[in-house]
């Protein structure tokens, strides 16, 4: 018996309640607080802020709680909220040379002005599950440096630049205002500022995999991690009524400058080229993946042959956004009865045609088959 599909609204409302109960989990266990998520899941918070393109630790923590820890869902929640916010203005470009460093390493020089600073990193931990963390433990007290770090440390690429060994990074002629991808659609060809914006909002896993592919021969890249730095930078705006910059707060950033070989061309002597990565919070993997992909996407500009996915701007940039990707992949869950019915009829027609000798013969087909008629 045919039962009409009714009661969708009640079913939806019930699914909300089930979801809320599953999110809360066992009510005997204390509920997570935003301060706990913010303070103890800081890397998850950083990723949600970065790909959600909204720097707000409290909202990111709330999104993570609401999403039960699902990062892409939390990113989606934050993005959907972000759209509703008015845009008051644009900040002055941040100067990462003025970063209050908590971490700064270079793989290209043994030592350099400002020194190598490991900071809080998993890099040299031995990945042994620490069973002592299974229980509450005393708060650790970290050591502090004997002398404070200098207020500014030159970037490694600046040091190379003094020698002319690396391409200069200069603003384009006329220093055009970059487009705002959150307000305008991505168009191709996309300039580098637009590409970097796209990559900065892009999915970490995707950039990681694409960056990885360039190391494995799918793009001719020979990268060195010139410098990775992480710390706090002041954020400044110039209010119209004041006409000078004021600091409105500080944000944590991770910056990665990849240095790549370049053979040179008829116009340009051999020199190092750059790949750039920048991410909110402590997001080193993201910044490095981004820098590799940025460099790969410069293939056309540098006259390199485009042979691999990571070098193809339309392929790379159209698929970075995990909110878009997640939505479109999962839209396959929506009903497709009508399309499917059409395909079913077509398939029956084809099978019935191929069973006969003459292709395209429409006579004498099974009863279920749709017949064709001329357009009315």
């Amino acid at each position: 018996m045919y039962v009409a599909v009714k009661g969708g609204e009640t079913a939806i409302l019930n699914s909300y309640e089930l979801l809320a109960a599953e999110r809360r989990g066992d009510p005997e266990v204390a509920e997570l607080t935003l301060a706990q998520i913010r303070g103890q899941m800081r890397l998850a918070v950083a990723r949600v802020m970065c790909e959600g393109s909204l720097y707000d630790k409290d909202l990111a923590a709330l999104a993570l709680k609401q999403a039960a820890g699902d990062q892409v869902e939390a990113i989606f929640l934050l993005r959907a909220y972000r759209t509703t916010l008015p845009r008051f203005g644009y900040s002055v470009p941040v100067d990462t040379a003025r970063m209050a460093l908590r971490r700064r390493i270079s793989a290209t020089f043994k030592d350099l002005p400002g020194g190598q600073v490991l900071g809080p990193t998993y890099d040299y931990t031995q990945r042994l599950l620490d069973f002592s963390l299974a229980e509450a433990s005393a708060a650790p007290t970290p050591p502090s440096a004997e002398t404070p770090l200098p207020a500014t440390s030159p970037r490694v690429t600046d040091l190379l630049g003094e020698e002319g060994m690396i391409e200069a990074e200069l603003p384009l002629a006329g220093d055009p205002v970059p487009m705002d991808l959150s307000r305008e659609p991505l168009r191709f060809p996309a300039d580098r500022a637009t590409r970097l914006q796209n990559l900065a909002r892009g999915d970490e896993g995707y950039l990681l995999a694409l960056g990885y592919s360039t190391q494995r021969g799918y793009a001719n890249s020979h990268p060195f991690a010139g410098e990775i730095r992480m710390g706090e930078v002041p954020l400044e705006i110039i209010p119209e009524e004041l006409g000078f910059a004021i600091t409105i707060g500080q944000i944590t950033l991770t910056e990665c400058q990849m240095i790549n070989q370049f053979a040179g061309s008829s116009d340009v002597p051999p020199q190092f080229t750059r790949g750039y990565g920048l991410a909110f919070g402590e997001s080193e993997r993201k910044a490095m993946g981004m820098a590799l992909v940025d460099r790969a996407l410069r293939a056309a500009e540098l006259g390199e042959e485009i042979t691999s996915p990571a070098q193809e701007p339309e392929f790379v940039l159209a698929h970075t956004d995990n909110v878009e990707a997640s939505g479109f992949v999962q839209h396959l869950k929506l009903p497709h009865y009508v399309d499917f019915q059409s395909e079913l009829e077509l398939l029956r027609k084809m099978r019935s045609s191929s069973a006969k000798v003459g292709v395209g013969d429409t006579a004498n087909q099974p009863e279920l088959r749709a017949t064709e008629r001329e357009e009315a």
Partner: protein
Amino acid sequence: MNGLPGYNFAYLDEQTKRMIRRALLKAVAIPGYQVPFGSREMPLPYGWGTGGIQVTASILGRKDVLKVIDQGSDDTTNAVNIRRFFNRTADVATTDRTEEATIIQTRHRIPEKPLNENQILVFQVPLPEPMTRLEPHEAVTRKLHALADYGLMHVKLYEDIARYGHIATTYDYPVLVNGRYLMAPSPIPKFDNPKLHMSPALQLFGAGREKRVYAIPPWTRVESLDFEDHPFSIQRWQQVCALCDADDSFLDEVVLDGGGRMFVCSDSDYCRTRQAAGHTGTENTPMEVSA
């Protein structure tokens, strides 16, 4: 009455709506041409109707009456969800009667009842570029549109005929709008394509994820691509609707408990209206179909 506290009428802020309306005006001025717009993140997932929702939100007025369908039905979960969204954020009147609606947002169907000049049909579009499966690079397809060079699509249709004896596209069947732009009608069955042609209603298409809108103004020529010796044709069933006996509607095939099949209208309002007018099908004695 403003709908959801803390949010603007119909969710989007007025500046965003204005930006979308400007894109829509351009789309109406160049029928079938894809206009890029600053698509926003919506609180519903991309691919689930964000383009249609943004178009509807930007044209919706307080006196509008909204109908939302998915697969022709008002009762499928996503249609329910989108209707709920506008109920919450705009508090507008909603209906499931095609003739009462001033705006109809749809996914995958055009209502069976003819539309009138006071109605706007808003399509949700997953992939606005009709040639995307033949040429994935937008930089290339944009050029092909500029040159009105649609040989790629004609060759694809020709190859279908050479291989299968007929064109093997059954939904999202490409159309030429106003004799100029090749357009994806969204994944409606080709059964619905003739309804696009010379429609008295304004037809707007929104692709949120792909950030494009396009339009078919009222009374515009819309031709489904075909060949002189292989004219365009639409699906027709030998069955009639098992609930309302309609022989002129798109039928969904329903698998019954016993493994049999029955066919019912995909347009739930059309079916209900016919039943109310006294048409009855085989309804509760499902037709057993011998294959």
